[in-house]
């Protein structure tokens, strides 16, 4: 249950940011790496789907999405009444936590590979499916019926924004081409994945270091929320995974999905649909607290939870 080495690159980036190193990853490299990671994950998911898809998954999918909808609905009142945040801020943060993080998921997959654990590859599909409901709920919580919403612009941003679009595009290409079709691309999209993830995490560390400053201004509540909320969500994911008869690896991944908070698709969508929400708060909590928590402590913890529930339940 030791630390994944790629996580050390996140720590290095964090250190660079906090020590004010002049290390900077150019914006275009950040963009290129995220395009690569999204495509690669999508392709992997598509290939797995081509191999594993069964009609039974459909029901599982509905249940997994249904349970996930609870997350923003639980987060919102906590943020609004316990945290005394403005309605827009509470709704926006709830949407971030209801949504998911591709990188957290990837580190979960890397962790399982190191632990030589199998998992249900088609879970990658939920990286796409869990995004939309959480964002729609977030907007509805912010507006509560009143106030004009740029639904058109926002839904266009969600569906055709680069993260969902590339994940989905990769899924389709992977599914259509199948394992042998994709094989000549393996050298780039699979073999280099871990190294690219390491460099991306270096950049994430740099960005997270900048986000911590935002948080300092807004007190302890958000930091506490950023640590407790993922554990709550992960518990829900663990129970769901076990109830749906996923493997230990799959259970852990579902917990990690629920626990993760979006910092790519959600910020863009919220900025359009709920512009009065302060992005410093939501990105600060998601990227400055929850992301490091999840990759440093959360994933080993969720693995232990998954093992425990499977042993106890059996």
């Amino acid at each position, binding site marked *: 249950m030791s630390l994944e080495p790629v996580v050390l690159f996140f720590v290095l980036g964090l250190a660079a940011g906090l020590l004010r190193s002049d290390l900077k*990853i150019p914006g275009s490299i950040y963009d290129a790496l995220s395009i690569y990671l999204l495509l690669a994950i999508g392709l992997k998911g598509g290939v797995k789907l081509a191999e594993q898809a069964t009609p039974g998954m459909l029901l599982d999918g509905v249940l997994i999405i249904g349970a996930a909808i609870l997350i923003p609905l639980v987060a919102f009142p906590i943020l609004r009444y316990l945290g005394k945040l403005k309605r827009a801020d509470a709704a926006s943060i709830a949407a971030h936590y209801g949504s998911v993080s591709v990188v957290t998921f990837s580190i979960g997959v890397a962790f399982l590979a190191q632990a030589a654990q199998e998992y249900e590859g088609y879970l990658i599909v939920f990286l796409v499916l869990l995004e939309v409901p959480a964002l729609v709920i977030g907007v509805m919580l912010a507006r509560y019926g009143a106030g004009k919403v740029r639904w058109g612009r926002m839904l266009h941003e969600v569906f055709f924004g680069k993260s969902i679009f590339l994940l989905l595009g990769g899924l389709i290409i992977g599914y259509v081409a199948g394992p042998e079709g994709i094989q000549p691309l393996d050298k780039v999209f699979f073999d280099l994945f871990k190294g690219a993830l390491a460099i991306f995490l270096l950049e994430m560390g740099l960005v997270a270091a900048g986000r911590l400053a935002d948080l300092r201004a807004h007190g302890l509540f958000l930091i506490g929320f950023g640590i407790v909320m993922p554990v709550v969500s992960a518990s829900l994911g663990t129970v769901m995974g076990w109830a749906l008869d996923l493997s230990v690896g799959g259970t852990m991944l579902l917990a990690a999905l629920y626990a993760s908070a979006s910092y790519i698709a959600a910020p863009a969508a919220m900025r359009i649909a709920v512009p009065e929400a302060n992005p*410093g708060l939501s990105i600060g909590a998601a990227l400055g607290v929850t992301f490091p928590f999840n990759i440093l402590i959360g994933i080993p913890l969720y693995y232990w939870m998954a093992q425990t529930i499977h042993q106890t339940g059996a």
Partner: protein
Amino acid sequence: MPEQNQRLLTIVCESMLESFLQEELPRLGASGYTVTDARGAGRHGRRGGAWTKESNIKFDIVCDAEVAQRVVEHINREYKQHYALVMYSTDATMHCV
């Protein structure tokens, strides 16, 4: 060489507004615009540009005073309140053939 007295209006804002302004500026009467990537600081703190979410863009628009006025009012109404954004303008001469 004919010349035209115009305003050079500059808008610095969050980069996510690019696609919106691209659509709206021609409708407001601007015959053209130039965009560059930028970073900076202001009332909304440092926007370092390292990361899409905190990078800026700069629109330069050469237009007559009336169009400039219309653009400023549109942006004040639609975006100024909730987005990191500044606008300033200077007199400018457009050099035409």
